[in-house]
């Protein structure tokens, strides 16, 4: 499931709910992306989505991940709007019967979210605002999944 959220959320609460009443899961991997202050260089991060389109594109990749890694369940929470340092931007969880599948699925979904999911990210600090685009490292991370 993918949910865009506008208010700050607690990644712990998301993980707690995701793990609840799972008697046949075995493995839950999660990833939480937190906004960094970068030693005062970033005051605020602003995340823009294309409501409707963004959820549908992400749901497609969630379905691909479930199939590829044989997952039992996935959850993606993603903030939109202004985000302060220390707040969670994204939370991804994957449930599987074996830990390798759960780890790889989280890793795969994060690489996708970083470089291909319909979000636009603007950092504002003392030096002004700039739009963040995927780094070369993000592109390399994503490419790992294509050659396998």
């Amino acid at each position, binding site marked *: 499931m993918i949910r865009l959220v506008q208010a700050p959320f607690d990644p712990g609460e998301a993980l707690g709910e995701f793990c609840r009443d799972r008697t046949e899961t075995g493995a839950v991997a999660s990833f939480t*992306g937190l906004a960094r202050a970068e030693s005062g260089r970033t005051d605020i991060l602003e*995340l*823009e989505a*294309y409501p*409707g*389109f963004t959820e*549908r594109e992400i749901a497609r990749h969630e379905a691909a991940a479930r199939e590829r890694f044989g997952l039992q369940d996935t959850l993606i929470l*993603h903030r939109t709007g202004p985000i302060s340092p220390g707040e969670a*931007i*994204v939370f991804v969880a994957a449930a599987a019967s074996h830990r390798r599948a759960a780890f790889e699925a989280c890793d795969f979904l*994060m690489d996708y*979210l*970083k*470089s*291909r*999911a*319909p*979000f*636009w*990210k*603007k950092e504002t600090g003392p030096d002004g605002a700039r*739009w*963040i*685009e*995927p780094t070369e490292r*993000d592109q390399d991370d994503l490419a790992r999944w294509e050659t396998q």
Partner: protein
Amino acid sequence: MLLFGRLADLAGWREREIPAASLAALRGILAAEDPALFEALQAPAVRTAVDQTLVNLDVALRPDSEVAFLPPMSGG
């Protein structure tokens, strides 16, 4: 028509109604009105969605079509 990310900053707006019969016609109108925006929309990294579906070629537009220009994406 919708603009996202740095394209909206460049144009100074995010959303407008523009009557056009096709994507190509819409680009023509923008080229005349705001050459810098037109140029930015031509970049290969900018994707185009019509009615929330990505398109690669010119397509016809209906009066209620939603056209969105999407600069390089980055979440997480």
